[in-house]
């Protein structure tokens, strides 16, 4: 097992990081937080670089890369607390389009003309096993009805990949609905760059990306796994950046005549922070690789990645803020963008608790019903 990035992957990451450092500095994030700016210019630049089509096949105008590369992108989007619909489009819509071999829509994505997010959660919970949203077959199309919550970038995407069950058979499927056919209500949030929204579907016309029926359950699972791992990865990206800025602060800030980073109690805690970040990174990479290679350990690895990311954010958000002292508590310091991004990452695509109970079922420790 080789869990280190290839040279191509390292180059890609370096490129992504350089672009985001230039185009999405904390000042740009601050503008979104304070309502004085938006992600339009950033989106344009990313489109120009072909990032929306990162995993879209070359034949459809994309870069033709795999899920590991999507995960790398997610990591750096988290690191930069980047606003805009790229994370949703690359890790939520595109996997569904790929599964459907939806050539036309993928072309639109690659060209930056279509963005999208999964609409999975209902009543505030990511519970993909039991969606209440229903898909009714109709002439030439499907009709989707139901209420979804907490769609990522839901306030700004142009389409949704909606998880719904067949009105008659109860089999799950994924359905493409144009945002103009749904009603998205942005949610007031302390993390405005994610543009979370609740979305109402009232008989919205839809195209099936994963048609409900034999094997649809597994196909849906595969799409959702990518969303989960990417969300874990972006959380860890934010956390690694928390570690970096905390280290910088600890090295520079003096107290009692010496840098606080020379106090042994802080050193040991910073060592534990590194451990938590490395641990979560390694599990996320492993999960992304299992997905990319369609390995049978995929599901367990997916849950594990979100659990490890959860442990990571819990520790990094706490100690990152604590070790910054008062300065990290001020709005004018950039730390809080990272804290809020890391926390939001825990809450989206299923909490640690949810994935722990799912993993228990996979490990045979609890019935699916019990979990």
């Amino acid at each position, binding site marked *: 097992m080789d869990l280190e990035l290839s040279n191509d992957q390292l180059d890609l990451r370096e490129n992504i990081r350089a672009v985001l450092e230039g185009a999405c500095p904390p000042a740009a994030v601050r503008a979104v937080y304070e309502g004085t700016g938006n992600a339009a210019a950033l989106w344009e630049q990313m489109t120009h670089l072909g990032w929306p089509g990162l995993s879209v096949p070359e034949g459809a105008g994309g870069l033709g890369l795999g899920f590991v590369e999507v995960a790398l992108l997610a990591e750096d989007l988290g690191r930069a607390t980047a606003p805009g619909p790229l994370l949703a489009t690359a890790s939520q819509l595109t996997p569904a389009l790929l599964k459907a071999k939806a050539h036309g829509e993928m072309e639109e994505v690659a060209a930056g003309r279509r963005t999208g997010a999964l609409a999975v959660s209902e009543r505030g919970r990511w519970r993909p096993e039991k969606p209440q949203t229903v898909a009714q077959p109709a002439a030439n199309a499907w009709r989707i009805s139901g209420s979804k919550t*907490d769609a990522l970038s839901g306030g700004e995407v142009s389409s949704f990949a909606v998880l719904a069950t067949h009105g008659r058979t109860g089999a799950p499927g994924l359905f493409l609905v144009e945002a103009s056919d749904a009603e998205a209500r942005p949610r007031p949030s302390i993390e405005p760059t994610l543009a979370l929204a609740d979305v109402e579907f009232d008989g919205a016309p839809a195209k099936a990306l994963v048609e409900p029926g034999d094997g649809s359950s597994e196909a849906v699972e595969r799409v959702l796994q990518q969303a989960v791992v990417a969300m874990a990865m972006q959380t860890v990206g934010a956390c690694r950046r928390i570690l970096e800025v905390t280290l910088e602060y600890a090295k520079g800030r003096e107290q009692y005549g010496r840098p606080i980073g020379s106090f042994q109690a802080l050193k040991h805690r910073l060592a534990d922070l590194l451990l938590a970040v490395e641990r979560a990174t390694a599990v996320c990479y492993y999960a992304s690789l299992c997905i990319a290679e369609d390995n049978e350990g995929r599901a367990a690895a997916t849950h594990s990645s979100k659990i490890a990311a959860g442990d990571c954010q819990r520790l990094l958000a706490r100690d990152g803020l604590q070790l910054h002292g008062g300065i990290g*508590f*001020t709005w004018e310091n950039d730390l809080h963008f990272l*804290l809020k991004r890391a926390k*939001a990452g825990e809450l989206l695509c299923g909490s640690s608790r949810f994935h*722990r109970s799912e993993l228990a079922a996979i490990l045979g420790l609890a019935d699916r019903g019990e979990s």
Partner: protein
Amino acid sequence: MKLRYDDDVERFRGQFQEWLDENQPTPEEMESAPVRSSAHRPPWARRWAKRMFDDGWLVPGWPPELGGRNADPVETLVYLEELDNRGIPRTTNPQGLGIVAPSLIDHGSEDQIECYAMPLLRGDLTACLGMSEPDAGSDLASLKTRAVFDGDSIVLNGQKVWTSGAHDADFCFMFCRTDPDVPKHQGISIVLVPMDAGGVTVRPLMEIVHPRFPDLNEVFLDDVTVSAENLVGALNNGWRMANDSLAHERSLVWLMSVFGNEVALKRLLELAPELLGDLGPLERAGAIDDFVGLHVDVLAARCMGYRGFARYVRGGTAPEQALMKVYTSEVRQRLALVAAELAGPAGLRPVSGRDTEVGTQEDFFSTFAGTISAGSSEIQRNIIADRVLGLPRS
């Protein structure tokens, strides 16, 4: 050991309860003008302070002329319990009542007591505390703000930070350096600085929670000139007075944290049906187990506090304030974390006022005020190691 107090203490409690029934501020009053900072005193709070002072319920342990009734510590404890039980704030300017006023009464001139301390007590003024500085942080001995005597005046220059309520306070109990040539902890004095004095600039610091309700400030002093009579106590005696002033009511500050945690736990358990509602069995069990742990945490804080207080009352060692501070603030943080994670994405909503709500991420972030300010948890652990455990200095 006993669970209940002696009869005379319970009679004292009854007396206070009766008085409260008649005099406590109404919910309508309190909601009419929410408190926006720790030195903000809306009209109702002013009336409330004056009423308590006049009837001897402001600082029960003091004599009547200072707003008290010569109560003993156990009676004072019972008094605070009653306020907490009813969720009534004793003051909206805790540093003024808890630190500045007592320090002035101990060390101030007659004029200072009359013009600053008594108005603080009667609700006519509020005060802030000028201790932290940008490069000193928790290290008071490193402070740099200069105060230079110039005939009958004192001229101050420097910068303070993390000054709670400075933008709403009437004056500041300002720590400054009056002799730069002696070892660091010597040469510090305290000067009373009216916040409207020329050269005082206050810049509120927006916080990462409820950014619209700042409490912390930067305070810039640019050739601020005050009368030499504003010097508190002896010149260069500020370090000792600081230790005294922080010790005021130290024997009972834990109580507020204990009650705060109990209120938060109560709220969490009220929310439980909603938070647990649609969880699967394993998730639900995990959350319940967390609740149980928090219950023990909160109960333990109460037991530790009351045990330390009982020792103190018997004249034994002072209660281990550092232990209580680090413990209660970290319990509150754990509680906020459990609640906020259970709330899911709904917990990302911004809260509307200064008070955060259990079950939001803002509540979680707000708990860091407890683990960072007034001596961070790290500093408290140093204190425990050095002073309680007697470990050798690093």
